[in-house]
């Protein structure tokens, strides 16, 4: 059997690289799209409002549409996604392929990690303690200057 001239975009990995099917698909799509594009799978069937959430979220994702691709990209992508479906969206199973700049995705991941660390270490504000504990907290003394604060005698 003659060897095919075109190698599929999806890399068949060796037995020692246990990559998931999602990872292989994402790598394949990333190889077709412009460099620096982050590929994500959005659950639009299970969450009808998911595309709207992603469009206004951080980073802002846009759905990958067949009509927005160049002919060469369409041809390459058809090797990965053989069934186009009724609408213009590029689908992977029950998910829709959405994209954003990789730099924005990485920046958001760093921001989330930093927030998570802060949350673990943060000190509660008096107002938050008041709200959570249901005990009024009086911080008037903190608003006064050092010389106005009550001092212990002696």
């Amino acid at each position, binding site marked *: 059997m003659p060897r095919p001239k075109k190698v599929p975009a999806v890399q068949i990995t060796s037995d020692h690289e246990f990559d998931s099917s999602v990872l292989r698909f994402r790598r394949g799509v990333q190889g077709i799209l412009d460099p620096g594009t982050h590929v994500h799978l*959005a659950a639009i069937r299970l*969450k009808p409002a998911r595309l709207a959430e992603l469009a206004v979220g951080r980073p802002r994702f846009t759905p990958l549409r067949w009509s927005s691709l160049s002919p060469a990209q369409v041809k390459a992508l058809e090797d990965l996604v053989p069934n186009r479906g009724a609408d213009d969206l590029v689908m992977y199973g029950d998910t829709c392929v959405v994209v954003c700049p990789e730099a924005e995705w990485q920046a958001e991941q760093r921001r989330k990690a930093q927030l998570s660390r802060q949350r673990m270490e943060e000190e509660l504000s008096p107002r938050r303690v008041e709200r959570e504990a249901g*005990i009024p907290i009086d911080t008037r003394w903190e608003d006064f200057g050092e010389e106005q604060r009550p001092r212990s005698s002696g």
Partner: protein
Amino acid sequence: MATPATFVVLSEIGDILLGDFDGSYARYAPIYTKYTQVLAGERSPETVQPLMYFSELQNVAIGGATPFQDPAEAYKSTAEITSAKRARGFQVAEEAVRLDRSGRVRRAAEKLGVSAQHSKETIAAGLLNNGFATNHATRAVPLFSNSQPLFGGGTYDNLISGDLAVATLDSAMIQFQNFVDDRGLKINLMPKFLAVTPSDGRVAKQLIGSPREPFTAENQINVFQNEVQVIVNPWFTDADNAFLLGAPGDSGLVLVEWQGVRRKAWVDEDTDSLKFKATYIGLVIPGGVDFRGAVGIQGA
């Protein structure tokens, strides 16, 4: 248990507050213990060093010598007590207790009990919340990564990038059941839990509970039905992340606990005030002691 309307002796209040604390601390069963192994810390640093499986049995001739192999250790994990202690307390003056007609001060112990419970859940959930970003000390990748290093060579992918859906859950299930040892031996783990935030609770229950695959017209059976148990954990910080997890001990999720939540009430006679405090000493090992037994589905 609600406290009585009036207090008579300051020293007697402590016992009542201890009861209030215990009642509110135990109001809900802990969530994290379903899938996290709680390891009693007996030293510091506490060390976990998993032993690798031996290679497959080798073919030998009848009467031939047995091929021996040294036990080999995989990536080491350590947890130090230094930064593991948590404490919170409150103090009230005797006069404040006597004049507290509305009972707000007297309910403080209940509130502290909730804080203690919240703290433990937050600490335990931190392992999964930081599982996409915080590297393991020796493995040098987070708990969830596309390239978990295998000692015997190669990498393993336990990070699925995408929202929780049929396609991503299918991929996560495959990765979970294909987990291998550091030498590439199949270890035959089965997932037990799909842990999600309240935001994804409905999606998870539809994916796991439906007799037919949800939201399709083909009427095919739902192969995930009752395969795992859904755990909704409000302490997960990212609304779109989901975690496919094994039973405690099957995964590398470990909480090292040197001291459980302890509470104490005492009267400071010098200032005529009642002091109450709760302490806890425990932490999780960032990155887990092992990546096996956990697959992360990372939403956007």
